[in-house]
């Protein structure tokens, strides 16, 4: 008996301690922006290599690009580190006039030499972002001539062909690759001639409102305002991005005020939070497309009609109202809404769930008895639901789909080496211009397996159409803007019927904002940390 009483008192003490716990007020510091985000995908901060959504945004807040998109209007380009720019009449020379007197965080002065070197190293390192420059003719052999600093504050880019200058401004000027790096400091920390690749994995040395103070993988990213920034200083001098993998936890944190912004929320969480009134939602469409990646190499998927049938298996409306509610809108055209040359909302999504049509198409293609195939999915929360919906509808027309879920890393490996049948995955378009998606998903210079263009989605899906290659090239160089847009429209219309993939949704960026945060600025392309305040 005595034992029991002792026991009870122990339990009692423990629980009362919980009530007595010194709980600090659940609030965040007034000078720090605290964000909850799943940042597991960060692997490096080197602009030559960064190739995913999270690091892209953080990097854009750390390193000033030459030009930028207007936060209010994504179609406008405004100066950022470059004060002004000129385009030659033949559209082949682009001259940027950089700001004078700016300094790096290390204190070194910023010159056009740094800007040129930053771009040159991207091409020379041949990592993920080299393509964004090499596709415009910047190759390692000639890069030192084609991207040059002609004086302290002038950067000159010589293009090999007369590309549309707006496109170049978007694809290079406003892209993360044009962040100006502190050449001196980076080279001081170079390892075996890697031009700072290893050092820049965990450091940033560029001119921008914030610098990377700390990155603890799987834990947090800490940004601190730069002292000698040329532009207006950010109102919140620190940004702490906490890694929170569970969406439920993120929701609890933002509702309680322990974080100011939650970046990953489910549709149900969002509906509840809105009702509670404690948290405001910011929802903007992004250039990220969720698509059903179909490998066009083998039958039956190589058959156009089969792939068209697939597009009728997608319950766009049903999914849009439920699984993808608030986090995406249906879109079957490969070019994202909001891009130059994109089909409008209606034309860009002519499909709906139609099992009879799908059946008829399959019969025309010679597969009235159906066939079996696989669908690999990664770890996005909506993937499993969408995959099962597709599987269910497919089974009703005789196609049996086996779902394989795996870690994202494994998924990338398989897609890269063309060892898959179908995959559900997202893709972030690099520019708000139809060229972005067309150049990646349609244009394929060489479909042979020896070419090993593992970084090109068109090659990965074995899609090769010389006719489309030509049409894309013509559209690229068409000087008349209206005609150019028309050409892209016609490409998209044809793609809707014969394209390699079934595009499903255009994804939104959703942020839950705690009431204490003001001036949260976010457009489809990124969030502007330096504009937020409390």
């Amino acid at each position, binding site marked *: 008996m005595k034992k029991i009483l002792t026991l009870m008192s122990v339990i009692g003490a423990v629980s009362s301690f919980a009530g007595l716990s010194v709980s600090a007020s659940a609030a965040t510091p007034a000078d720090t922006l605290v964000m909850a985000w799943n940042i597991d995908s960060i692997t490096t901060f080197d602009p030559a290599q960064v190739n995913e959504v999270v690091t892209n945004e953080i990097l854009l807040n750390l390193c000033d690009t030459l030009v930028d998109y207007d936060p209010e209007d994504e179609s406008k380009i405004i100066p950022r580190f470059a004060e002004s720019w000129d385009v030659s009449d033949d559209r082949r020379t682009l001259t940027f006039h950089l700001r004078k007197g700016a300094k790096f965080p290390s204190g070194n002065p910023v010159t056009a030499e740094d800007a040129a070197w930053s771009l040159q190293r991207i091409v020379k390192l041949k990592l993920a972002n080299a393509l964004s420059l090499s596709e415009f003719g910047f190759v390692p052999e000639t890069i030192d001539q084609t991207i040059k600093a002609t004086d302290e504050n002038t950067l000159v880019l010589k293009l090999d062909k007369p590309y549309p200058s707006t496109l170049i401004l978007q694809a290079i000027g406003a892209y993360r690759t044009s962040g100006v790096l502190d050449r001196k400091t980076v080279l001081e920390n170079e390892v075996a001639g890697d031009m700072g690749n290893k050092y820049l994995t965990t450091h940033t040395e560029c001119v921008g409102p914030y610098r990377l103070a700390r990155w603890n993988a799987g834990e947090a990213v800490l940004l601190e305002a730069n002292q000698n920034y040329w532009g207006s200083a950010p109102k919140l001098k620190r940004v702490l991005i906490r890694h929170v993998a569970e969406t*439920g936890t993120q929701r609890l944190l933002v509702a309680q005020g322990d974080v100011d912004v939650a970046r990953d929320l489910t549709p*149900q969480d969002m*509906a509840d939070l809105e009702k509670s009134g404690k948290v405001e939602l910011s929802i903007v469409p992004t250039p990220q497309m969720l698509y059903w990646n179909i490998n066009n190499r083998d039958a039956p998927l190589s058959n156009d009609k089969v792939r068209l049938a697939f597009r009728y298996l997608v319950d766009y409306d049903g999914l849009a109202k439920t699984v993808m509610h608030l986090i995406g809108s249906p879109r079957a055209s490969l070019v994202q809404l909001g891009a130059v040359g994109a089909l409008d909302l209606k034309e860009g999504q002519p499909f709906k769930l139609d099992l009879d049509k799908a059946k008829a198409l399959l019969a025309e293609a010679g597969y009235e008895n159906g066939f079996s195939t696989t669908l690999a999915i990664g770890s996005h929360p909506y993937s499993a*639901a969408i995959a*099962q919906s597709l599987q*269910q509808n497919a089974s009703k027309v005789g196609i049996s789909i086996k*779902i394989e879920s795996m870690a994202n890393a494994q998924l990338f490996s398989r897609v890269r080496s063309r060892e898959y049948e179908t995959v559900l995955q997202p893709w972030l378009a690099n520019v708000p211009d139809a060229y972005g998606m067309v150049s990646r998903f349609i244009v394929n210079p060489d479909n042979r397996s020896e070419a090993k263009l593992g970084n090109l989605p068109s090659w990965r899906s074995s899609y090769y159409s010389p006719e489309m290659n030509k049409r894309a090239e013509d559209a690229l160089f068409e000087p008349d803007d209206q005609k150019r847009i028309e050409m892209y429209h016609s490409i998209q219309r044809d793609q809707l019927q014969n394209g390699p993939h079934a595009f499903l949704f255009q994804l939104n960026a959703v942020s839950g904002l705690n009431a204490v945060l003001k001036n949260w600025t976010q457009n489809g392309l990124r969030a502007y940390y330096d504009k937020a305040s409390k």
Partner: protein
Amino acid sequence: MIDNEKYVSGWSAWINAPIPDTPLQARIQLLWESLRRFAANGSALFGLAILCILISMATFAPLIVPHDIFDQDLAKQLQAPSSNNLFGTDELGRDIFSRMIFGSRITLYIIALTAIIVGPVGLLVGTVAGYFGGWVDAVLMRIVDIFLAFPSLILALAFVAALGPGIDNAIIAISLASWPPIARLARAETLTIRQSDYINAIRLIGADPLRIILRHVMPMCLPSVVVRLTLNMAAIVLTAAGLGFLGLGAQPPSPEWGSMLASGRQFILTSWWIAAAPGVAILLTSLSFNLLGDGLRDMLDPKHG
């Protein structure tokens, strides 16, 4: 004074006879005693009852489910429990109650197969190592130690990643991670009895080692191994759920409890029933194995019970 008048006739007389006439009768009497001890243990009976319910659910699944388990209806997603859907609907509008029932089949399949693999393998390795000693013991125990020292989740993950996701590969992976404790237990038991007199006697008679192990040592280890195995089942249910949770067990749309839990994860705060049903099912299954194991231990080894 033995009161012979009480035990007059029939079954009662036979089973309660103070002096058995044949070895068979003696053995059956012992078994009866054990069963009576077991029946006296309330919690063990409770565990057994749950297990029986589980098994009958799995067996009669097609007959009792009210809805098709793959039937999606997006318009009816995330509905709370109602008379039509006892446990509500999930994010694709499927009936959770029906999926739960079929999920019990998968769970039992995993448990049964794992037990069949892990039991004999662990027992064999452990008894051989314990009986022979010397370098045989050293080598076998090193192998056991290596597997034991390897984080079980990583081992399971690695094997599933290497072999491909799916239920059978998950079973192999879990078995690989679960057999070392059984082997260690069998070895420990073997060590304590290997020097005992009756083993020595049999050895003197000239029986060969394998026969000794199979017919004499193993049966002695069997009770504790069975108990340990039953208790392990509880952990295996959770591991399988964990693997399913990480997406590496049974693939969608299979109604495996772990993956149901995983998909219900994002809705816990809004539609709690999606994760509640499989969660409680896993809990009850695990609990019942634990209670059953405890009861078995009490029954088979009076010293412990």
